[in-house]
């Protein structure tokens, strides 16, 4: 799932201050990359803050597989 779609789900279920903070550079395939995502559960009476951020993917830190192709 693209990060922006995952973020949209986080907001949909009620998280606020949700954001894709940054990519980690770890790739499990040419199509996927690690990302750091953050959200908070609202305190009753607290105003929502729905500003989400999304950084650009980081340079690859791809390692040659030493076993079968894998992912996570």
């Amino acid at each position, binding site marked *: *799932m*693209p*990060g922006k779609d*995952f973020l949209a*789900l*986080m907001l*949909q*279920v*009620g*998280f606020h201050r949700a954001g*894709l*903070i940054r*990519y*980690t*550079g*770890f*790739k*499990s*395939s*040419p*199509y*996927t*990359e*690690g*990302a*750091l*995502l*953050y*959200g*908070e*559960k*609202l*305190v*009753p009476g*607290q105003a929502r803050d729905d500003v989400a951020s999304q950084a650009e*993917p980081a340079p690859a*830190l*791809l*390692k*040659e*597989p*030493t*076993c*079968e*192709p*894998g*992912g*996570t």
Partner: protein
Amino acid sequence: MSPEMTEPEIQKVQQGIKEKYDRVAAAGSGGCFQYPTGKAGMELQGYSPELIKIFPPEVLAAFCGVGNPFSLGSLAPGDAVLDIGCGAGVDSLVAAHLVGAGGRVMGLDVTPAMVERARAHQARLGLANVTFQVGEAEALPFPDATFDAIISNGVFNLTLDKEKALNEAHRVLKPGGRLMLADMVLVAALPPDLGDKVENWFQ
């Protein structure tokens, strides 16, 4: 969940993920991922050198995370923390160290073999404030508002129903609780010949 997946396809995905992580549990130290794992992976993701040096090599070798969820915020002494998809327990044990004796950490994983490895690592370190159990992200076996923080590392991408898993995470967090995730996301469209393959879930 992908609406076009049939029940046999769902079962195939679940079985494939289980078999893959049974293999990871049995293999011990990584080697089956296309990114750095073990101590090198932790160092590249900025885990604290002070934390890394207190863990024995066999525990460090089990790290297969895709990022560092602890870089998203601090855990306070006394916090209650849930690690969804704890695997061999490395992040749970990091969290247990950070929250101290007054805190508690629950590591949850769908693969019994990984939970057994996590318990062995816990015993090796002698930490009493962490517990591991088998369970699913889509049906968290905890009451509402139980945890101050949830961490997870490379797991939500493997859940078939991400909305349900996120709803469950939201439910078990206390008000003001933090969700701190490292996970795999798509950064490019899958080619058509790959996009529909059930095997993509667990390769």
